[in-house]
C-alpha cells in the first residue's frame, strides 16, 4: 500500500516539473531570432512585408510570449497539437507516424545495452585480472572513446559499402512488404542492426565499466565472505548475494540514460535517414517549426520524467533501506 502512495506523491511532483520544463523550452524556442513566416517568405521584397505581417497574425505570433504559451497550453489540453507551418499537416499526425520507429530503435538499444553490459560487467568482475577481464576493459575503454556518429559511418563503410551485407540507410526496402513475412521481417532486422549497434555501443561501454566496478566493490564486502562461510556455492554467492547489490546503482543510471538515448537517436536517425521523432526534431529546429518542436519536446520530457519515476520505484522496491 505505501508503495502506491509513494508513486502517487512522485506523480504529483512530476506535474510542476513538467510545466516548468515546457515553459523553459517554450521561451527557448521563441527567443530564437527569426520565425517560420520569415523563413518561408523572406523579407527581401517590400510587398512581402504585409503578407508576412498578415501571416504572423493568423498564427498569433505577434501576441506577447506568455499569451502564446497559454494558447498553446489550452490547445494541448484539448488534444489539438496545432498545425505544422510548412506542410500544413496536423502535428499530431506527423508525430504519431514517426513515434513508432523511434520507440522501436530506443527500446532495442536500451534492452541491448543493459543486457549485454550486465553480462560482460559481471563476468569481468568475477574473473578479475583474467584475459577475459582485460579484453572487456579495453573494449569498454575503446567503446567510450567512439562517438556514435563516427562509429555509424565506419560500420556503414565496412558492412554496407565494402561487404554489402547490410543496407546503408532507411527502415525497409520498398518491395519487401510484398515478399514472404519471413523475408519482410528479415529485411526489417537487417535495417535495424547498424542503427541499434551505433546507438547503444557508447552506453554498453559505459555500463559495462560501471557494473564491473560496482560488482568489484560488492565482492569485496564482508557479507560475501559470510555467504561463502555458510558453504554456499560460488554461483549462489555471486548471482544471489552480490548481483542484487551491484545492480542497484545501475538502476538509477538507466533512468538518466533514457534522456541521452533520445539525443543519440536524433543523430543516428539523421544519419540513417530513419523516419523517427529525433530526425523530425532536428529538421524542425532548422525550419523553426514551433508547433512541432513544442509537441516533440513535451513528449520527450514526459518520457524522461516517467522513466525516472519508474527507475526510482524499481530502486525503492529492490532496496529495502529506502523508506517511502
Amino acid at each position, binding site marked *: 500500500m505505501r508503495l502506491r502512495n509513494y508513486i502517487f506523491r512522485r506523480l504529483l511532483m512530476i506535474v510542476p516539473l513538467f510545466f*516548468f520544463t515546457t515553459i523553459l523550452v517554450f521561451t527557448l524556442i521563441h527567443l530564437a531570432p527569426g520565425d517560420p513566416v520569415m523563413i518561408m517568405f523572406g523579407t527581401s521584397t517590400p510587398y512581402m512585408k504585409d503578407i508576412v505581417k498578415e501571416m504572423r497574425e493568423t498564427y498569433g505570433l505577434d501576441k506577447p510570449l506568455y499569451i502564446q504559451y497559454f494558447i498553446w497550453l489550452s490547445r494541448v489540453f484539448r488534444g489539438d497539437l496545432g498545425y505544422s507551418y510548412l506542410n500544413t499537416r496536423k502535428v499530431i499526425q506527423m508525430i504519431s507516424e514517426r513515434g513508432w520507429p523511434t520507440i522501436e530503435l530506443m527500446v532495442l538499444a536500451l534492452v541491448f545495452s543493459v543486457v549485454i553490459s550486465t553480462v560482460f560487467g559481471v563476468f569481468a568482475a568475477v574473473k578479475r585480472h583474467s584475459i577475459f577481464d582485460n579484453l572487456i576493459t579495453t573494449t569498454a*575503454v575503446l567503446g567510450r572513446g567512439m562517438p556514435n*556518429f563516427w562509429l555509424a*559511418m565506419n560500420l*556503414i563503410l565496412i558492412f554496407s*559499402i565494402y561487404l554489402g551485407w547490410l543496407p546503408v540507410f532507411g527502415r525497409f526496402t520498398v518491395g519487401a512488404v510484398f515478399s514472404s513475412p519471413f523475408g519482410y521481417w528479415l529485411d526489417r532486422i537487417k535495417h535495424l542492426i547498424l542503427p541499434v549497434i551505433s546507438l547503444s555501443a557508447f552506453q554498453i561501454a559505459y555500463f559495462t565499466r560501471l557494473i564491473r566496478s560496482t560488482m568489484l566493490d560488492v565482492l569485496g564486502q564482508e557479507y560475501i565472505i559470510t555467504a561463502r562461510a555458510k558453504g554456499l556455492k560460488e554461483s549462489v554467492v555471486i548471482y544471489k548475494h552480490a548481483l542484487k547489490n551491484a545492480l542497484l546503482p545501475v538502476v538509477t543510471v538507466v533512468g538518466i540514460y533514457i*534522456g541521452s538515448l533520445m539525443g543519440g537517436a536524433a*543523430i543516428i536517425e539523421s544519419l540513417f535517414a530513419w523516419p523517427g521523432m529525433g530526425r523530425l526534431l532536428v529538421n524542425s529546429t*532548422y525550419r523553426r517549426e514551433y508547433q512541432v518542436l513544442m509537441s516533440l519536446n513535451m513528449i520527450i520530457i514526459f518520457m524522461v520524467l516517467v522513466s525516472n519515476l519508474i527507475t526510482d520505484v524499481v530502486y525503492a522496491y529492490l532496496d529495502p533501506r529506502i523508506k517511502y
Partner: protein
Amino acid sequence: MEFPKESSIEETTALEYLFSRLSGLRKLKRNKASIVGLCIILVFIVLALFPNVIAPYHPFTTFRSRQSPSSEHWFGTDTLGRDVFSNVIWGVRTTFYIGTACVLIELVIGLLMGGLAGYLGGWIDDLLMRITDIILALPTLIVLILAVSMFKVRSINIIILVMGLIGWPYMARVIRSQVLSIKTTPYVEAAKAMGATTQRIIFRHILPNIILPIVILITIHFAGYVLWEASLTFLGLGDPNSFSWGVMIMAGKNVLRSCPWISTYPGLFLFIMLIALQILGDGLRDIFDIRV
C-alpha cells in the same frame, strides 16, 4: 636543538604534495596506461600550440579535390580540395580551445555554486539540488540542440557558452559532495576550534584538498564537451567555418562511398583524444584512489 638547515617551514605548493604522494607510491610505474594517456595529451597540446609547424599546408589552400591519401596529402583532400591532414591538425587547436573554455566556465560556476551549497548548506543547498535535478533529468543533447538553435549566427564561443551553462551542474554536484565530506573531517573541525576564520578554512583546507578530485573530473568532462561539440556540429548546428572535427566528419558524410578518408581521419583523431583523456582520468583516479 639544532635547526635542520636544508628547509625552514614554508608554504607547500600543491606540486610538492603531489610529488610526495607520487614518489611515495610505486603505483605510478604500474599505471602505464595513464602515462600513455598523458603523453598523447601532451602531443596534442604541442599540436594545438604550433599547428602551422606540423601542418604542411595552410588549411584553406585548395588543391585538386577528392584526392585519395598520397605522399603529398597524407590524409587526401576533401570535396573543396582542402588538405585534410592540415585541417585535422588545426582541428586539434579548436578542440582544445572548446574543451578548456567549457571546463573553465563549468569550473567557475561549479566551484561557486557547489562550494556555497556544500559549505553553507541550508536553502542554497536545496536550491542547487533542485536545479541540478532538473538539468540532469533533461536530455542534454536535445536541450543543447534547442539552445544552440536559438542563435542565428552560431559561432564557436556561443556554443561554448551554451555547453558550459548546461554542463556546470555536473561539476557543482561533485564539488558539493567533496566540500561536504571535507567540511566534516576532524582537521577542519580542529581549525574551527582554533578560531580559524571561514575564509582561512576555505582557502587553506578545503580548496587545496579538492584540487585532485577536480583534476580528475576535468579530464572526464573535457572529453564530454568535445564529444558534445562534435555531435552538435555533425548535426549541422555547429560553427561551419571553424576547423572543428565535427564539421569535417559531417562534410564527409555524403561522399562516404567515394572518398571515405574525409570523415575517417578527423574521427580517428577525435577517437584518440577521447581515449587518451579517459585513460588519464582512470589512471589518476587509481593512483590517488579518489572516488569521483
